[in-house]
């Protein structure tokens, strides 16, 4: 019985003593930290994806609280609303950014871009890219081993085994940009997110001349310039045999879509414009392409 009392007593005294020491040590080495950082961190999505350019949400919260001007800081995952809330909470001016979405700019499906060789190495796009151009004859097209799919933390990218291409789910995409960095061919671009996930973009990155493109892929941009001529907003430019639609200037008028002879301009979640009468002659042809 005596031993028991003694043990309890000793340990209690020891505990109290250590607690006192710890208290003073904690006072001595206290780190002053803005309590708002914790609050802001809670408001951020907590994905730690690095899309903002910082190591994680905590680092971003720290920057948001400590920097005076936060116009250059933006969390693409949280989006405009949350950024405004945070700015309001901190009494600063919120950065304004349009919502963006990752867009895969290659339309070379297995049917349109036939395989010309068989690859037997590690199933990884970056590895393939160190060896050669890939299984098709196009040096710019999607390799299809899904480095971007692995990089996505939001389950927004998936490999379609039928087409051999990666597809983006715009509802899940947060435009963090991880896939943009992961793609060794630089095929993924962050583009403006239109309402109802509408989009018009050139699904090709091939800088080769038309004849070379046609040999390798039937869905590639041949740089013919028809779209550039028809665009009333000057949104389309042709550089290095490749058309590019500037999403800042594009108004989704869809005129270019019907003009494209190879179908390289993709239209999403929108009906194409009705064909004009003079195009009727070549209508069966375009149906073939669609098949």
């Amino acid at each position: 019985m005596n031993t028991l009392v003694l043990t309890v007593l000793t340990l209690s005294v020891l505990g109290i003593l250590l607690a006192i020491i710890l208290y003073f040590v904690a006072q001595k080495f206290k780190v002053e930290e803005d309590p708002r950082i914790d609050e802001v961190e809670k408001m951020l999505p907590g994905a730690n994806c690095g899309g903002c350019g910082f190591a994680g949400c905590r680092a971003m919260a720290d920057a948001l609280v400590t920097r005076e001007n936060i116009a250059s800081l933006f969390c693409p995952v949280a989006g405009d609303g949350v950024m405004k809330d945070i700015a309001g909470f901190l009494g600063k001016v919120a950065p304004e950014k349009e919502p963006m979405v990752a867009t895969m700019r290659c339309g070379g499906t297995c049917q349109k871009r036939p395989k010309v060789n068989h690859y037997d190495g590690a199933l990884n796009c970056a590895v393939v890219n160190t060896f050669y151009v890939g299984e098709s004859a196009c040096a710019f097209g999607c390799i299809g081993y899904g480095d971007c799919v692995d990089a996505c933390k939001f389950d927004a990218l998936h490999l379609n085994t039928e087409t051999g291409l990666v597809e983006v789910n715009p509802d899940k995409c947060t435009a963090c940009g991880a896939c943009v960095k992961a793609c060794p061919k630089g095929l993924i671009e962050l583009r403006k997110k239109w309402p109802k996930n509408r989009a018009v973009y050139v699904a090709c990155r091939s800088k080769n001349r038309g004849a070379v493109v046609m040999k390798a892929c039937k869905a590639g941009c041949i740089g013919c310039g028809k779209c550039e001529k028809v665009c009333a907003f000057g949104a389309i430019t042709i550089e290095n045999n490749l058309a590019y639609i500037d999403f800042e200037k594009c108004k989704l008028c869809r005129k270019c879509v019907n003009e494209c002879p190879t179908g390289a301009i993709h239209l999403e979640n929108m009906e194409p414009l009705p064909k004009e009468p003079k195009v009727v002659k070549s209508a069966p042809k375009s149906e073939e392409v669609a098949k």
Partner: protein
Amino acid sequence: MKTFPIGGIHPSDNKEWSKDKAIEVIDLPNEVIVPMIQHIGAPSTPLVQKGDKVLTGQLIGQATGFVSANIHSPISGTVTAVDAFPNGQGQRRIMIAIKREGDEWMEGIDRSTEHKRECTLSAQEIVAKVKDAGIVGLGGAQFPTHVKLAIPDGQKADTLIVNGVECEPYLTSDYRNMLERAEMMLTGIEITMRALGVERAIIGVENNKPDAIAHLNEVIARDSYRGIEVMPLKMRYPQGGEKQLIAAVTGRQVPPPPALPLSVGVVVCNVSSAIAIYEAVQKNKPLIERVVTITGKEIGQTHNFMVRFGTSLDYLLSLSGGLPEGDVKVLNGGPMMGRAIVDTTAPIIKGCSGITILSGKEAARGKESACIKCAKCVSVCPMGLEPYLLSRLARLQKWDMAEEHNTIDCIECGCCSYTCPSNLPLLDYIRIGKQTVMTNIRARAIANKK
């Protein structure tokens, strides 16, 4: 018999397919496509335009950087295009297409077969001639030779090692050169020794080529080449690697990059490069052709061709009975380090010592399974690295850790992938790790300078 101290494997050498085929000079192709990058370093600048007439041996590509090499027209005729053409890997690069009209050589090139041994040029003059001739390492690395021969102030070489190892299975171009062009080679070595100011040259040859060793010894004794000796080496892959060869021959260890072999007083040069040096210095002949082995178990005929650069692979295959039926793997080089070719219209370049054709079955990789931590890859790595770890780190994109574990020391010999019982593509991933780490180091160096 000597060999390098750690790692290495012993693949079957498969040289019997082409080793007895004498070097054949082939009919010139009707068209050549000459790439402007046939060396490591910056691409050369084209000096001709469409429609220009060129002569054989005329300078058509000017070296642009310090580590860059001149390129000469391999045939005479008219330039039909200066444009992007696909290389063996399907990547489009700037090349010059020339349509052949006869075979007229530039003035000043000595085409006689007479052997010229006397050389009274100074070291600088020799280096300048080698530079003008656009000579690069013909073993496959394509490192410009004049950079190797120009020894910076304050450093000194004492030994020239000549690489006649040809440890890569299947290839026999160096072997045929040693047998058939030994005099040219030995004079080339003498000239190189003169340029470097060294008294001693050692030709390392693996003991699977006893007739080459005997022939070289005979010629050395007969024509009294002083200071040159032939050292037979125990057969082991990758003995032809620069660092491995230095370790095997001299026992010296080259420190990790960026140190060069010169830091241990050694310069290494390939046997075929020695012949090119002889031709450049004594005959004023630029580097426009080389011996290329066409080999493989399934191919109709195997050959050792003397090929002008820019000749398309299709042309060489048509002279060898074409590709065998079914799936084949066509390699630029041998099966260990060769790179697969996806476009057979691609031209032969300076670093191409052979074309190996494997059947789909031979070339197929085994099914990948999990690493069983057997450490076989560690025991075969000639650089003393841990391939399983480096490959894993590259997969996980832990570049900092990969750098700590010296991934840039990897010589990409492929011993690890060859030996792995789980068929893991170890080297595939290590190569990405190596490239990324190199990029990071360079970026850091630039940032530090600023």
